[in-house]
């Protein structure tokens, strides 16, 4: 039985009984000592890894102190922090731990982390009200609640010490897991105060630290989750092993909305290692002794599909419909000044930008392990929406929620794909037919061809420039509403708040402004959130168009933007820094160019300069990206830099290669050979410059994805004089073989 996973920085206090090592065996403790030097981290010998509650340890830690949902102090002085958000590479476990431990004044070397159970009330993201990790919202939404949670417990401990020592609370301070009374020289560890502290109520508004007193926040501390990710020990959902485990893989109808008509399984059944064929409404699974048997079995099936109503859909149909919709008037997301008057002042420029479907292609393919019995259901999965995972398993099994246990493992790439629970839905359906636990793993082909896709978008813009300033600006966004499906109550008055994000709140000074949204659902293609979400399409369109306006006005793109950013000094500062660090304006060789893009997205202010070179065949080499970032107070600067480096590469991948197309109702791409990823040999030098700020933290995980495509597009124009208004870039247009569409 696999229990709760736990990450720990505890040193020798772990106890010898913890140090067992049986790779691959579920339930094995994977803790190791002395794995890494502390380096930048606080504390000396760090131990990081999964730890299981053990009988001996449990006895020693009897009646721990758990005054709120986030903090548990054991009697041995160890502090366990409960993680409301999931770790998928963005470093949130470490950031959340730093925030909690900062205000608690915990000894960071004795802190361990534990994933929260499904519970929307206790662990729901304050912005969404449900347990969801997404929209670069973890630090932003939890910043104050977590600080208050830490400070509240610290206040209780001071109160307990004040009672014990009979001194005023104001004469007591805390440091590194201890309560200290300087006047008398008395000090005691938090654990010694547990009995007195039980039942004390934290103040409603506990005093928070002055940021100048932060000891952890702002430091580039080492991540908790890294050590077991470099030695193969970390268990992702796909790595779960259980006694008697069977392995399954599946094929869904290649046309969305189609169903199974008939399956001939004679050949598959005869293959060694194939145990069972499970035929369900719209997919077929093969269960075997291992993935190889399951895959062989699936390949041997003869399946006849009823392809349903979308069997003839092609990308051309999707675009025809989207373009037609984009010519209709939309719901008004923002209206300021007099748009008719504004668009009549000066020369009018109009442009349309188009973005393709995109798959997520997380490196860990979709998977889910399930054990269904008549009385209960147990699920092992890595998911961004824990409570929804539990709910779908309850729905499919017909069991009450409390009979469904979900073990949320670390995620091998989320990017929005794991905001959906379709892989759990399917796995539980299969598991209901299987005796014992079954691990369902999708092939990469299935993963690419049965995603929920970043929607196609068409952004149409019209604007006028008068005396170097924008007089009128009209922006219409046309595309699928993911919000309407995913969070229906948030879809109000025809406006998808995600689709218009970063467009309605454009940072430029524009007196006459209108932003509209037209909902257009592509026929037969499911859509979903994709890293960078709404700001991706809007910032690409806006920053490309601003560049076009600057060029049309014969102004330098940096100068032009500078003149429009009077109301956004934080963004202007980022613009200046990126321009300076990139040596904006200095000479470059022929067919090379620099492009700039700025954005306010996810609460962060970012300017990005890309430097590119285009060869005569239209092949693009990105040499360098310089990024200046004001993301408010930075919790872990190394994580912020890492997220931007990675996000920029994610965004470049999309702009250079990303495209999912449809023919006969089917996704045409299937694997990394035809759905390409940027590789190390194509990766530019990347510089990230952080701007110091005392503002509340912004989000960061998605910002780089949003930043890269417009900076790239503008650099390509600087290099070639060719404006690309469609993504991904078309090399035939850049080479002059084809005209821009």
């Amino acid at each position: 039985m696999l229990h709760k996973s736990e990450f720990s920085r505890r040193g020798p206090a772990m106890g010898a009984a913890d140090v067992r090592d049986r790779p691959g065996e579920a339930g094995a403790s994977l803790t190791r000592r002395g794995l890494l030097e502390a380096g930048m981290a606080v504390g000396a010998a760090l131990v990081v890894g999964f730890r299981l509650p053990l009988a001996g340890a449990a006895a020693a830690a009897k009646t721990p102190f758990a005054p709120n949902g986030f903090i548990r102090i054991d009697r041995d002085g160890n502090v366990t922090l409960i993680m409301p958000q999931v770790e998928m590479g963005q470093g949130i476990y470490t950031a959340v731990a730093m925030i909690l431990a900062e205000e608690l004044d915990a000894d960071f070397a004795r802190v361990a982390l534990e994933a929260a159970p499904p519970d929307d009330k206790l662990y729901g993201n304050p912005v969404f009200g449900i347990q969801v990790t997404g929209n670069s919202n973890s630090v932003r939404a939890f910043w104050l609640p977590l600080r208050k949670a830490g400070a509240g417990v610290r206040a209780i401990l001071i109160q307990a010490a004040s009672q014990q020592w009979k001194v005023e609370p104001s004469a007591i301070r805390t440091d590194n897991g201890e309560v200290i009374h300087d006047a008398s020289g008395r000090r005691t560890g938090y654990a010694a105060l547990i009995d007195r502290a039980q039942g004390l109520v934290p103040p409603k508004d506990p005093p928070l630290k002055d940021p100048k007193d932060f000891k952890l926040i702002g430091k580039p501390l080492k991540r908790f989750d890294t050590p077991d990710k470099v030695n193969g020990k970390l268990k992702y959902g796909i790595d779960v092993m259980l006694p008697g485990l069977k392995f399954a893989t599946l094929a869904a109808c290649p046309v969305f909305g189609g169903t199974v008509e008939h399956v001939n399984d004679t050949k598959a059944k005869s293959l060694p290692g194939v145990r069972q064929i499970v035929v369900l409404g719209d997919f077929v699974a093969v269960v075997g002794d291992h993935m190889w048997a399951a895959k062989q079995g699936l390949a041997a099936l003869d399946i006849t599909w009823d392809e349903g109503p979308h069997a003839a859909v092609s990308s051309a149909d999707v675009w025809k419909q989207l373009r037609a919709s984009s010519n209709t008037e939309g719901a008004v997301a923002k209206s300021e000044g007099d748009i008719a008057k504004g668009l009549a002042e000066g020369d009018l420029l109009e442009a349309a930008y188009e973005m393709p479907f995109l798959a997520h292609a997380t490196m860990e393919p979709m998977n889910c392990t399930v054990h269904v019995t008549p009385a209960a259901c147990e699920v092992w999965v890595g998911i961004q929406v824990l409570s929804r995972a539990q709910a779908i398993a309850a729905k499919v099994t017909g069991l009450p929620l409390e009979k469904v246990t979900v073990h949320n493992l670390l995620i091998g790439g989320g990017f929005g794909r794991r905001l959906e629970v379709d892989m759990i839905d399917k796995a539980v359906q299969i598991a209901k037919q299987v005796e014992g636990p079954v691990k369902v793993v999708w092939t990469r082909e299935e993963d690419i061809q049965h995603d929920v896709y970043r929607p196609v978008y068409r952004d149409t813009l019209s604007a006028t420039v008068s005396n170097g300033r924008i007089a009128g600006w009209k922006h219409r966004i046309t595309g699928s509403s993911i919000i309407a499906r995913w969070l229906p109550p948030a879809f109000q008055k025809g406006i998808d708040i995600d689709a218009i994000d970063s467009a309605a709140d454009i940072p430029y000074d524009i007196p006459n402004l209108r932003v509209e949204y037209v909902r257009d659902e592509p026929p037969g293609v499911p859509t979903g959130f994709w890293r960078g979400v709404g700001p991706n399409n809007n910032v690409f369109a806006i920053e490309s168009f601003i560049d076009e306006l600057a060029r049309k006005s014969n102004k330098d793109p940096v100068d032009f933007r500078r003149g429009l950013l009077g109301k956004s000094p934080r963004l202007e500062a980022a613009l200046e820094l990126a321009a300076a660090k990139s040596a904006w304006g200095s000479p470059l060789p022929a067919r090379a160019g620099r492009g700039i893009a700025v954005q306010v997205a996810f609460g962060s202010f970012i300017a990005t300069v890309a430097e590119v070179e285009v060869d005569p065949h239209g092949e693009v080499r990105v040499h360098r990206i310089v990024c200046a970032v004001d993301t408010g107070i930075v919790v872990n600067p190394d994580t912020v830099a890492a997220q931007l480096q990675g996000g920029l590469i994610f965004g470049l991948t999309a702009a250079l290669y990303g495209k999912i197309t449809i023919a006969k109702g089917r996704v045409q791409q299937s694997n990394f050979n035809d759905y390409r990823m940027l590789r190390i040999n194509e990766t530019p030098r990347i510089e990230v410059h952080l701007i110091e700020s005392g503002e509340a933290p912004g989000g960061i995980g998605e910002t780089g994805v949003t930043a890269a495509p417009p900076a790239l597009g503008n650099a390509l124009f600087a290099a070639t004089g060719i404006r690309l208004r469609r993504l991904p870039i078309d090399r035939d247009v850049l080479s002059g073989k084809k005209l821009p569409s």
Partner: protein
Amino acid sequence: MVSLRINDEVRSVDAPPDMPLLWVLRDILGLTGTKFGCGIAQCGACTVHVDGAPVRSCLLPVGSVGNRAITTIEGVGASPAGAKVQQAWLELEVVQCGYCQSGQIMSATALLNAVPHPEDSDIDAAMAGNICRCGTYVRIREAIKHASQV
């Protein structure tokens, strides 16, 4: 039964000879550090060493391995180069989601064994077969250079 030498241990497995080594490691032996990414040798997540050379285990029939030594991410730290690479990965905080990193580390270790002081072009050639969706390439390059100087 197929006999395999994995991380200096002899393991016997009941597997058909055409079964890729990846699934033998993961599903039969429980060595889940080696990852499934694409199944067609495009992403490198499943990289292991066979007699020290980096090989994509998702396409390597187990019956073709014979007596050659297999090293996986679980065992690579026992070699000086492997330990140096893992340490560099920690010091430069390379990892994000981490799913591809087993394969990255196996490829990087093989590179350092073949070219102790790699240039950028050596790194490009040795590492271009390993995809990282989180985009940790900038740090992978730095970490390989760091490891080569230890």
